[in-house]
């Protein structure tokens, strides 16, 4: 894992001191709210419906045990004993008091964390593959690139006041687990025909009220050109992106209006004219960063330890969890495990301080002291010896984190929605809970197979509903919640934006509508091997529409 150097420590510590002084001045009345708001937002502090909310950056979702333990401490000491992991691989605390925030930030700084640039029209936390450094289909660990981008983009003088926020995602593997096609810029580490490693660059993806799948900006970018090319791409956006209308200010609108060819032409022209050496990351600095992401030294382990195979045979709950929640590891004798933060009927993405501490303990003892937050609002323990898997499973089970549902119908993504968010137009969490309760049976979930449900409580789409197999968007109709349903969205495997079924559903009717959709799928699939997405792509919207609205 990356460790702060002297500069990083000073940068974060000074920033906390600066924000402490700004809060003091706000409380003393020397700063008005109008003056203070942009300052607090740049430090990740929002004002929500019931309280302030502090969004803490978890760079590319990677956490150590010590860091997770500090998040637990913060939750307990200054919040209400829990935190909410987000689709941006960050964590949000929902109940802090303004006067306590500097102390929370000092606590974060003590474990090399901060909340800088988790809001505002700047380059946000660069997200990545939760199986980075683990996946067998990986060309190179994407977190090296993500960390280079983090350092380059932190307080970047040219890109701190963009037209709108800017999100970059990086994957180093063939299978895209970072949803790069729905980011402002998506980077995929690839090899060219000469066998050199570089980036395939996508631009102009995003969700919100105008969802767009990113388009290819460059098929192959040499690694050394990363920062100059990103600078050129951002510079063209910063110059020509709209500032007159907040809803048309993201890069996706610029790319859409110019066309990817014209946008690419302008980026290439800027790139060609640039002093690349002045912008490129120094080779020795990249090497220094890369060294932090060297694979952990994992002791040799048997490929099939007897105790492990015995428990697989004798404990069906363990077998189900291993089958659904663990992933192949590049090192023989190891697997990565997804800790589902989606217990049946639970709040998607929430973890209590106790659960955080258990995950920290298990990571320290059994996973090379590492965890990853996923954009699906789960946690990955990346390096578990097969012989330790049962111990880990039992540890998770003791605190209700053993749901064997990764990628199944109850692995629901949900934004905080109207229960917390000042921007929301409808609730998300209780809708997720009602659906989760309805599909509680493990056997039924397995029968349904891979199926993503994602819920957003407003058009901003923090719950990624546009790229869900079943997407749910909560809206306000004259003070009453109403929910639109979309089908066929997908972030990665042939990325697509979901299509609306038709008129919306009331709060109480959403779980029934989802059940109708699922039953329709089960009735028309060609075999149990045909997934919901495959079936939808084969038959289209009509059978679902008919099932949903025929009775009306």
């Amino acid at each position: 894992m990356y460790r702060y150097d002297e500069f990083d420590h000073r940068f974060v510590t000074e920033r906390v001191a600066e924000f402490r002084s700004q809060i003091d001045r706000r409380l003393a009345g020397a700063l008005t709210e109008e003056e203070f708001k942009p300052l607090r937002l740049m430090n990740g502090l929002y004002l929500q419906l019931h309280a302030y909310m502090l969004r803490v950056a978890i760079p590319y979702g990677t956490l150590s045990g010590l860091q997770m333990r500090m998040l637990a401490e913060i939750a307990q000491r200054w919040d209400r004993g829990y935190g909410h992991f987000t689709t941006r691989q960050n964590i949000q605390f929902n109940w802090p008091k303004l006067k306590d925030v500097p102390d929370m930030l000092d606590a974060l700084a003590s474990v090399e964390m901060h909340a800088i640039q988790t809001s505002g029209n700047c380059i946000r936390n660069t997200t990545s593959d939760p199986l980075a450094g683990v996946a067998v289909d990986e060309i190179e660990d994407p977190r090296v690139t993500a960390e280079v981008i983090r350092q380059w983009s932190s307080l970047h003088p040219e890109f701190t006041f963009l037209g709108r926020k800017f999100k970059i995602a990086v994957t180093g593997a063939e299978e895209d687990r970072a949803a790069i096609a729905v980011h402002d810029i998506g980077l995929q580490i690839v090899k060219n025909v000469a066998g050199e490693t570089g980036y395939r660059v996508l631009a102009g993806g995003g969700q919100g009220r105008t969802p767009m799948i990113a388009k290819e900006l460059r098929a192959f970018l040499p690694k050394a050109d990363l920062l100059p090319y990103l600078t050129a791409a951002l510079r063209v956006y910063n110059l020509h992106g709209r500032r007159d209308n907040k809803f048309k200010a993201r890069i996706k609108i610029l790319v859409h209006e110019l066309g990817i060819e014209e946008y690419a032409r302008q980026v290439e022209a800027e790139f060609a004219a640039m002093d690349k050496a002045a912008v490129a990351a120094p080779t020795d600095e990249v090497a220094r960063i890369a060294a932090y992401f060297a694979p952990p030294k994992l002791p040799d382990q048997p490929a099939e330890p007897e105790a492990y195979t015995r428990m697989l045979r004798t404990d069906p709950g363990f077998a189900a969890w291993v089958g659904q929640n663990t992933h192949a590891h590049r090192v023989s004798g190891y697997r990565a495990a997804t800790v589902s933060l989606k217990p049946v009927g639970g709040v998607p993405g929430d973890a209590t301080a106790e659960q955080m501490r258990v995950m920290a303990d298990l990571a320290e003892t059994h996973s090379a002291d590492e965890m990853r937050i996923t954009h699906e609002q789960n946690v990955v323990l990346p390096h578990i010896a097969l012989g330790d898997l049962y111990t880990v499973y039992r540890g998770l089970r003791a605190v209700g984190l053993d749901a064997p549902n990764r990628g199944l119908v109850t692995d629901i993504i949900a934004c905080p929605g109207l229960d917390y968010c000042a921007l929301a137009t409808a609730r998300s969490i209780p809708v997720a809970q009602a659906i989760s309760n309805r599909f509680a049976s493990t056997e039924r979930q397995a029968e349904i197979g891979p199926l993503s449900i994602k819920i957003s409580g407003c058009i901003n789409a923090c719950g990624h509903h546009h790229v869900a197999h079943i997407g749910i968007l909560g809206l306000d109709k004259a003070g009453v919640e109403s929910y639109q349903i979309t089908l066929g969205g997908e972030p990665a495997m042939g990325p697509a934006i979901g299509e609306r079924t038709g008129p919306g559903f009331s709060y109480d009717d959403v779980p029934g509508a989802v059940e109708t959709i699922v039953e329709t799928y089960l009735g028309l699939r060609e075999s149990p091997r045909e997934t919901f997405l495959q079936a939808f792509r084969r038959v289209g919207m009509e059978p679902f529409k008919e099932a949903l609205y025929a009775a009306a």
Partner: protein
Amino acid sequence: MAKAFQPSVFTANDLIEGDAVYLGETGWVRDVRDAAVAATAAALSALEARAEAGIAANEVVGIYALPVSLEAGAPWPVTRREQIKASRNTTIAVGPAAQPARLSDAA
């Protein structure tokens, strides 16, 4: 025909705590049922002036008016969003020991 005036109250968030507050007869209160109700446009303007004074005095942030129903004998918001804000909590149990809010005014 002019639209009938909907009785309204003023809300904001407390500067330090961040929680929901309502403008009462003599100051900011936590319970919407204790809020001062404007029954006319003129009364609403008068409330707004007092609410703005709360901003100037550094007590609250984000003032706005919201329509209320008086059916239960005390003001209660008519939209789902404002009912949740007035309930001062999430509508579901969250965290290790929390209780969900009630959205009716019969709490």
